[in-house]
């Protein structure tokens, strides 16, 4: 036996309990929700137990999409669906849901889950809209940056305080900005001087400018906004007095990816020209590769003949400028620099970045070039009230069921039953902690599985207790009876639990959505039940027998 002493067993049990409590400790989760009044996104911090609830419990929309093949077959549906995934991903922020899921299932199916979203028509229109790709030159003259003091003044007049005004906040901003630039620019002294100047400009206590940080590579028109302040910046930029002051010919576009500098995450904001130099309609092909000679990641693209002429003209005027790649209004990755005039065939060099990134970019280009029309093959919308009712009913049924189980165990097995009930409490805690740790989703059938598993979980204890009773009846001493009881019940417990776990495993492999949730709950439950019923109850018995070594009869 691995843990022979009571002490080591208690330590293991204690560690498991502490671990469970830790896993289940309510934590602050930032949720982006739509502000009912303004229709914009805002962040709220919610304190909740970190267990994911399935759509059927929290309400929301589930959509399964496939490439529309009704107007002729699509030759490579796997490619089409991965392009569609890219597009949907870049649009997902518009929904403002906390944990959206965009997932390719099988080869050619895309599943989108939007917890909390209520309007299926809106969701479908956003998802099914054709992707729009455009190339735009960034704000090379720094028109937007130069307009910032003006904007700040307008905001001050409108009574908007800079979020960094409160002493500590301002210090934080300056401090964060300083080391950040120097670190990024180590060895580039020339650029450094400019950066320092920009810093003073930008750190003037303005409502908007205090949120915007200088681009680490000094790209004109690129700004970094701390992730948590992005919604604030977004709402400021949407104000009419700010909109009026954004220079003519300039538009602002958010980037899709988060850049982390030090411990913080930043979202990029790009000031770009309002006219695209070319759109996705002109793009014919885009492929990623790794250059054999330079060992760089490269995306090759081919334009249509007319697009090539247009692109040649435009890039000729913009050599040395940055070109943002914008899909559905969001800048994708970092804008590449135009090194020379480009015609019909062009390439984007990503330097030493991994090939994966080049593949992603090629996907973005293709997504805009060959929009894949999506058709909805499955749709579920669950209202939030229904989910809450389900949780309420499920918990009520669970409580009643568990109370009945407790009653049966305590009445029938008396003190040993009490030990089993104690172990059952641990069982529930371990199972919930397991759900939280594995990041699995609790669905309505999962909730049923959890309740059901409480009834089944005591089976192991029942087997052991019955065996102990038998051994006692055969005239064994209490201590021997307990040992023998555990020993002989073991093979039955292991065999029966393993076979149930195998069935649950198949359910997991074959099932989808709610049924998978059920299977996971069942598997975690089986594991937790083995630990508590065998290990924990055994420990309780060891303590009990140690305190009363001369015990003649056992309360079982």
């Amino acid at each position: 036996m691995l843990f022979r002493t009571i002490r080591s067993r208690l330590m293991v049990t204690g560690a498991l309990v502490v671990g469970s409590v830790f896993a289940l400790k309510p934590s602050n989760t930032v949720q982006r929700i739509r502000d009912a009044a303004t229709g914009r996104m805002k962040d709220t911090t919610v304190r909740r137990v970190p267990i994911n609830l399935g759509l059927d419990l929290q309400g929301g929309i589930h959509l399964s999409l496939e490439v529309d093949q009704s107007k002729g077959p699509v030759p490579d549906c796997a490619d089409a669906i991965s392009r569609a995934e890219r597009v949907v991903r870049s649009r997902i922020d518009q929904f403002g849901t906390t944990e959206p899921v965009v997932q390719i299932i099988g080869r050619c199916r895309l599943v989108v889950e939007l917890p909390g979203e209520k309007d299926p028509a809106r969701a479908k229109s956003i998802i099914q809209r054709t992707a729009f790709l455009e190339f735009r030159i960034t704000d090379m003259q720094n028109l937007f940056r130069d307009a910032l003091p003006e904007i700040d003044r307008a905001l001050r007049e409108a009574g908007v305080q800079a979020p960094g005004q409160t002493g500590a906040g301002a210090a934080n901003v300056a401090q964060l900005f300083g080391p950040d630039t120097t670190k990024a620019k180590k060895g580039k002294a020339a650029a450094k001087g400019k950066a320092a100047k920009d810093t003073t400009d930008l750190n003037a206590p303005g409502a908007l400018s205090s949120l915007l940080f200088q681009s680490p590579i000094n790209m004109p028109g690129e700004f970094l906004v701390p992730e948590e302040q992005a919604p604030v910046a977004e709402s400021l930029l949407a104000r009419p007095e700010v909109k009026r002051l954004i220079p003519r010919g300039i538009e602002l576009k958010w980037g899709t990816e988060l850049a982390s500098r030090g411990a913080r995450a930043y979202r990029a904001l790009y000031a770009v020209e309002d006219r695209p130099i070319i759109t996705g309609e002109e793009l014919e092909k885009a492929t990623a590769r790794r250059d054999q000679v330079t060992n760089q990641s490269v995306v090759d693209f081919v334009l249509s003949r007319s697009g090539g002429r247009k692109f040649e003209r435009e890039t000729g005027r913009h050599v040395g400028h940055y070109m943002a790649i914008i899909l559905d209004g969001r800048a994708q990755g970092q804008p590449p620099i135009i090194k020379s005039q480009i015609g019909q065939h062009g390439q984007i060099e990503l330097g030493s970045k991994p090939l994966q990134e080049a593949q992603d970019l090629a996907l973005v280009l293709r997504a805009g070039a060959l929009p894949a029309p999506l058709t909805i093959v499955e749709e579920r919308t669950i209202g939030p009230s229904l989910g809450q009712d389900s949780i309420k009913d499920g918990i009520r049924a669970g409580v009643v069921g568990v109370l009945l189980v407790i009653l049966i165990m305590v009445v029938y097995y008396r003190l040993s039953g009490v030990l089993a009930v104690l172990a059952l409490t641990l069982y529930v805690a371990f199972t919930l902690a397991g759900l939280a740790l594995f990041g699995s989703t609790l669905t309505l059938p999962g909730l049923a599985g959890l309740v059901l598993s409480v009834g089944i979980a005591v089976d192991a204890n029942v087997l052991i207790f019955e065996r102990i009773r038998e051994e006692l009846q055969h005239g064994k001493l209490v201590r021997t009876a307990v040992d023998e009881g555990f020993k002989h019940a073991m093979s039955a417990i292991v065999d029966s639990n393993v076979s149930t776990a195998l069935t649950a495993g198949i359910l997991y492999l074959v099932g989808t959505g709610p049924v998978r949730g059920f299977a996971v709950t069942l598997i975690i439950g089986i594991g937790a039940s083995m630990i508590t019923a065998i290990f924990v109850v055994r420990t309780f018995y060891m303590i009990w027998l140690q305190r009363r070594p001369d015990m003649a009869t056992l309360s079982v």
Partner: protein
Amino acid sequence: MIRLFANANYDFIKWRRWAYGLTAALIVPGFALFLVHGLNYSIEFTGGTLIQLETTQPVGTERIRSALDAAGIRDAEIQQFGGANEYKVQARLGTTAALTQGSTDSTAQAVDSALAHGLGPHQYTIVRTEAVGPKVGRELQGKAFLAILFSFIVTLIYLAVRFEWRFGLAAVLATLHDILTTIAFIRYLNLEVSLVVVGAVLTMVGYSLNDTIIIFDRVRENLRKFRRQNLYEILNLSINETLPRSVLTHGTTMATTVALVLLAGEVLRPFALVMTFAIFTGTFSSIYIAAPLLMYIEKRWPGQDARGARAFRPAGAVPLTPPPSGSGSEARSKAAV
């Protein structure tokens, strides 16, 4: 101390023919119904549209039907679902013209506007909609079948490794019996077969196997302990010895499933009903199907240790009492804590 069925000594196996009759009486008509009418599959399997709504006051299914009829939506099923003011409207694929064209979302909108017309726009809220295309439904049917098939194969292999193939075969056949009775049960109550109910059937497979394994585990042990009894007696002895455990475990499990049936709401009720039935059929089949089957299998293909099925009745010579203490306790210790 309460003791149920302690030292029970019933001759279970003797009643096996009665049990076969009983189970056949349940399965045959139910299965005939199943073959003729099929099952009441949910739209997850058939494809179609489901709309669950809550009205401000109970309006009755008739008002909803007339509202839908007025809009030309005819073949939708309307039923009360849960409370008096909650309804479920569902149309399976192929029943409505709009759906056969492959657009799954138009039906939901048509129903919504028909209701807004017939009941008034603020008289109801749609709390759930589901629309499933025909392809997804067909895929799911295939997957559900595969899941059950795979679970059989895997279980058979596991039991063959842990026991021997005769035990595994008997256990799997008993489980097959449970699936048949459950299908009959679902057919009798005309429960809607959704994915969750398929999940319940698979859980039932696990639970029923579990129960069979507990008894077989004891059979395995008793076969080693009592060298002079025949299989008939060993089976009876093992069933009787595990009887208190069966009663207790089924009691606690039943407590939870009945709580689910009564309290967990309309969506989970079919699941909970199937699980409650599963406890009966699982217990029944472990005793009356799995054990006699093991006996027949041992007779047909005798194993090494199978002084098995020399006789289908008790030998009578040897009393079936527990051995003197200490003689058989070191039978084996397979797993350690």
